[in-house]
């Protein structure tokens, strides 16, 4: 399969089951909502080292937020409900509660609730006020700029993490440009998150390492500087490879994001130095979900 001169490899991206939640953060201005969202989703690129994968899903206009102020929607993914609970409380407690003028609300409904303000309320030292409005419970915690308003619970849902595709091209600049296009297109979609910096990862990994203490190490088959030394998957014209990792609330969301992302990356085409689209997998042994590139682009 060739799109705009770019070869779509006959392979699949492998993804794993995760658990996820959405939180809506509002503030006096869109700037401060964004600051809170960015802060609470900092250092959240991979569950391996960060405990959670998180990012801002979208900005929300005032007329669509619970309290009528500008807001952002944040997605958090973790490997288990327990870890997600821990990460939500820690991140909201340290990064949203502390951020001027913010409020936090549940962005998901499901039968699996997790605490949002349920324990953070104790920061109020007994002066916190509970309000039950429209069947939901909110906490008003007195803070120095007024009140921190926080919904008691949010909800978690099963999700998909680690969907991915690789962009292979003739130069760093060209591959980065193609990936930026893909990121721009994917970020317009709901329910998906690109957890890596700017949505793009350069350090794709393989399972295992020559060092016993490491579970994963560099994906040598796709490192252009190891061509000729290892069993490389790169042709002579490939100088750079970047990966886009996609988490989504559902399999269909990841599938659609992968499709939209690859199409955007291929817009520059062979003329723009993009040669091949591939994907990372473990032979289908580890992940529950497979996204066959050619299948989803048909």
């Amino acid at each position, binding site marked *: 399969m060739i799109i705009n001169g770019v070869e779509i490899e006959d392979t699949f991206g492998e993804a794993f089951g995760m658990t996820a939640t959405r939180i809506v953060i509002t503030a006096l201005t869109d700037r401060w909502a964004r600051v809170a969202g960015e802060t609470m989703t900092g250092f959240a690129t991979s569950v391996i080292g960060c405990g959670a994968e998180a990012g801002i899903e979208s900005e929300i206009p005032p007329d669509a937020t619970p309290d009528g102020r500008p807001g952002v929607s944040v997605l958090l993914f973790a490997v288990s409900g327990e870890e997600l609970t821990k990460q939500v409380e820690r991140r909201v407690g340290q990064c949203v509660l502390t951020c001027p003028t913010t*409020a936090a609300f549940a962005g998901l409904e499901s039968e699996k609730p997790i605490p949002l303000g349920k324990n953070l309320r104790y920061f109020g030292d007994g002066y916190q006020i509970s*309000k039950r409005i429209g069947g939901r419970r909110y906490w008003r915690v007195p803070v120095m700029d007024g009140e921190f308003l926080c919904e008691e619970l949010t909800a978690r849902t099963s999700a998909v993490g680690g969907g991915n595709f690789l962009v292979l091209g003739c130069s760093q600049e060209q591959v980065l440009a193609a990936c930026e296009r893909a990121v721009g297109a994917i970020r317009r979609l709901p329910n998906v998150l690109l957890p890596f910096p700017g949505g793009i990862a350069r350090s794709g990994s393989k399972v295992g390492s020559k060092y016993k203490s490491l579970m994963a190490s560099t994906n040598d088959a796709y490192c252009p500087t190891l061509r000729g030394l290892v069993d490389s998957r790169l042709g002579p014209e490939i100088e750079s490879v970047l990966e886009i990792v996609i988490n989504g609330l559902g399999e269909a969301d990841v599938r659609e994001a992968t499709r939209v992302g690859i199409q955007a990356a291929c817009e520059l085409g062979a003329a723009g130095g993009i040669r091949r689209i591939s994907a990372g997998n473990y032979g289908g042994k580890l992940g529950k979900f497979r996204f066959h590139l050619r299948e989803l682009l048909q």
Partner: protein
Amino acid sequence: MSRLVLTLREPPAHRIDMGAFTPDRLAGLSAEDVRRIPLWHGRRQVPAGDLFQVEGTDAEQILIQAGSDRLDGIGTGMSGGEILVEGHAGAYLGREMGGGTIRVTGNTGLLTGSAMFGGQVQVEGSCGDFLGAAIPGERRPMRGGFIAVHGNAGDRVGDCLRRGIIVIGGNAGDYCASRMGAGTIAVLGTVGDQVGLGMRRGSVLLTVEPRLPPTFNANGTHYLGFLTLLTRSPGFGAGPFAAFRERGTRARRWLGDLGYGGKGEVLLWS
């Protein structure tokens, strides 16, 4: 199936306990079964059919026509469905109600919504004293749900209130929110004397400056985000209460009753 309609044959000479006529209790009964339900009328027990014309079978929706202020306990303990009262209703409307909706086009008597813990009560007229309060001597006040009164309310609105929301489109009498433990009371009109006397927690939202007991302290003016959540909630958008939405989130605040911990709040929407 058509809704169940109870029409008073004539204004009753005595008070009638209407607790038997809820969607839960009448589910599956025919109109004839409903007519046979015994009701106390003075010293005598009479079949409901002697006092009411009964038509229809769908007890999920009950219409009580030509209501009277002697019809007490309408909707007692109901957990779902809908009761519409065309005319007035008596005391204890919606008592111990856990779900469903009651709408009254006229006035209601004493203790509307007492011990209620869910559902919605809408009174298009006015209501008597002790709205949403505990019956004297009883420890169970309103503990959840939503009561909207388009007209005025009497004294002791929300006495001992534990949870739930009461909104009043007109005026409220004396001792509004007395001994309140939690919950929310909003009044569009004026309130009488001694608002919040003995209040421990909870919120009273007003639009006219109140005469507070001396045991309340001024707390300043604040932006309170929860007011948006409250005024956007279902129930606040209807009838006279839509005016609340235009009030914004800035409010003058008093804390009290300081004799009881002082964690209650009286807010004056500026």
